[in-house]
């Protein structure tokens, strides 16, 4: 019997029990679709996070006070070693760290911002002019914070889009005064619209000069220093340079942490990859359950067709002919499930990101190939036992079977 005939025969046998075949195939379909869909969700989330993080500025270093370990994930900061980072630290980095193009001191606080009786709680960020370049976040109307604003501790503010809309509506706020935590600030600019990134509304912020922010929040500490490295090849060396410089300034103590955007990214993607693998694994278990369904139905089929097996053996079928026939049937079952599962998984993933914009999915070829390969393997694995049972039936007993 040539292969095409054998496949045709297997399909014919499966078509003879349509409901049974469909239900068995469904088990595999669900498993395969689940693998593809869950991997697509995981990969989509990874791609989304990568895009958002690199969109915030590339070659970024984040220097935070306190020593924390960052390799392999997040740890709480070791509280006892926290020492402050200062504005002068940032200036020193900008002047003397040759591998950096910028170093921006950041002060972060929250405050009530008020204008004409309307008020809003929002995040207040103290920055220097380089912030725009480093963070890839630019002013759209008016001006951003200037060096003179910083050195002069001027009370000027740049509004994020959301804050502007909430406080001023369609009105032009430039030159108007707003109250930020009981101090009057003059509006000098409005940021471009950025929208929500990683669940955080970038437009719901206001920017003021960093020294003004230190005055406002009555602190000489920085929340962090953002630095950008001139060349992506120099990131590791730049981290070392920053460390050397700051350790010297801090009396030979490494009481700060330098993390590259890349390290944060890989921390995120490591988590997501683990999560994706775990989800794919769970989906794989459902595929395994589908395989047990195949075995079950093939065992029933072998029993029902005992007489057929006897007839085939009587007219000269060898064991391997019978084995091949039943193996082929279970593999055709599982392959059918694989193909339909791919269709359902791919369609489901596309549909998800189409109807739910916040669920980005990315179908990866390897997950499709893996799911299909796995489904075929399941067919082979769970087909062997029933097929061997069929092949080893005694023809005399089989012919007599009612």
């Amino acid at each position, binding site marked *: *019997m040539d292969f095409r*005939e054998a496949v045709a025969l297997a399909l*014919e*046998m499966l078509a*003879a029990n349509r409901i049974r075949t469909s239900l068995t195939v469904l088990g595999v379909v669900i498993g395969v679709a689940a693998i593809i869909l869950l991997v697509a969700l995981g990969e989509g989330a990874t791609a989304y996070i990568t895009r958002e993080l690199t969109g915030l500025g590339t070659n970024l270093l984040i220097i935070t006070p306190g020593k924390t370990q960052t390799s392999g994930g997040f740890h709480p900061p070791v509280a006892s070693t926290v020492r402050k980072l200062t504005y002068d630290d940032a200036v020193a980095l900008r002047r003397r760290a040759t591998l950096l193009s910028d170093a921006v001191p950041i002060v972060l606080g929250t405050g009530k911002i008020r204008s004409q009786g309307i008020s809003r709680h929002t995040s207040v960020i103290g920055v220097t002019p380089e912030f725009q370049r480093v963070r890839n976040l630019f002013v759209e109307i008016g001006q951003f914070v200037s060096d003179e604003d910083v050195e002069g501790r001027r009370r000027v503010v740049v509004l994020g889009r959301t804050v502007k809309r909430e406080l001023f509506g369609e009105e032009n706020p430039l030159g108007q005064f707003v109250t930020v935590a009981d101090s009057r600030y003059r509006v000098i600019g409005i940021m471009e619209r950025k929208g929500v990134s990683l669940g955080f509304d970038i437009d719901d912020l206001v920017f003021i000069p960093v020294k003004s922010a230190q005055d406002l929040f009555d602190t000489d500490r920085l929340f962090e220093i953002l630095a950008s490295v001139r060349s992506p090849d120099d990131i590791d060396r730049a981290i070392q340079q920053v460390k050397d410089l700051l350790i010297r300034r801090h009396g030979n103590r490494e009481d700060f942490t330098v993390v590259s955007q890349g390290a944060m990214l890989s921390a995120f993607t490591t988590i997501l990859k683990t999560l994706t693998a775990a989800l794919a694994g769970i989906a794989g278990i459902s595929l395994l359950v589908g395989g047990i369904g195949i075995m079950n139905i093939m065992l029933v089929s072998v029993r029902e067709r005992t*007489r*057929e097996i*006897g*007839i*085939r*053996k*009587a*007219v*000269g*079928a*060898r*064991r391997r*002919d019978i084995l091949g026939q039943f193996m082929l049937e279970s593999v055709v079952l599982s392959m059918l499930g694989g193909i339909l599962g791919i269709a359902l998984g791919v369609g489901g993933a596309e549909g998800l990101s189409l109807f739910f914009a916040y669920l980005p999915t990315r179908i990866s070829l390897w997950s499709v190939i893996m799911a299909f390969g796995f489904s075929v393997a399941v067919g082979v694995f769970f087909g062997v036992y029933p097929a061997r049972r069929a092949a080893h039936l005694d*023809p*005399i007993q089989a*012919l007599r079977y009612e």
Partner: protein
Amino acid sequence: MIAFEEVWRSYPMGPSRVDAVRGITFTVASGDFVAISGPSGSGKSTLMNILGCLDRPSAGRYLLEGVEVAFLDDNALAALRNRRIGFVFQTFNLLPRMTALRNVELPMIYGGLHREARRRQALEALAAVGLAGRIGHRPSELSGGEQQRVAIARALVNRPAIILADEPTGNLDSKAGEEILEIFHHLVDGGATVVMVTHNPRIAERARRVIQLEDGRIVSDIRR
């Protein structure tokens, strides 16, 4: 062509054993029409299974065209069944989902014949049993006699050394049974060898030679 020499077949039955066939010796010449007859429990089914290479003797020798069957492995036995033996069963044993033509093609599928050759030979065999007009019918669409004729076509399609028929008329009315016996005579006239097992003496009498079994032994061997 067929030679049984002191063939025994025993089955373990608990601590003891049952001897279904006890030292049978006989030969069947090519072109003969032999009936093996006897009451149930006389060992004819066991003998039939050994003759058909579905079973091996426990002791003694079975030579099919000079080949000692006891020494063959399962694959070789399957090949022997495929090429040298044609079975006709009491209950026809056709595959229900397949047409008459495909049922007749079945042995040739395992014989590795090409599609065209298979089809041609199957059509010839079906014509030889007078079913040229029914090739597209499934067993459920055929009468008992027609089904048995399909089974005969399947048995003779590989031009076997021997056609083994196990109660071939047992499930048929007397008219259809008569037709089957006539087909056998016709085949024997054409040079085929037929061995037919039956408990019915009137059917057995229609063969050229009747071997009578009782308790696993030959009690008479009459040629008419």
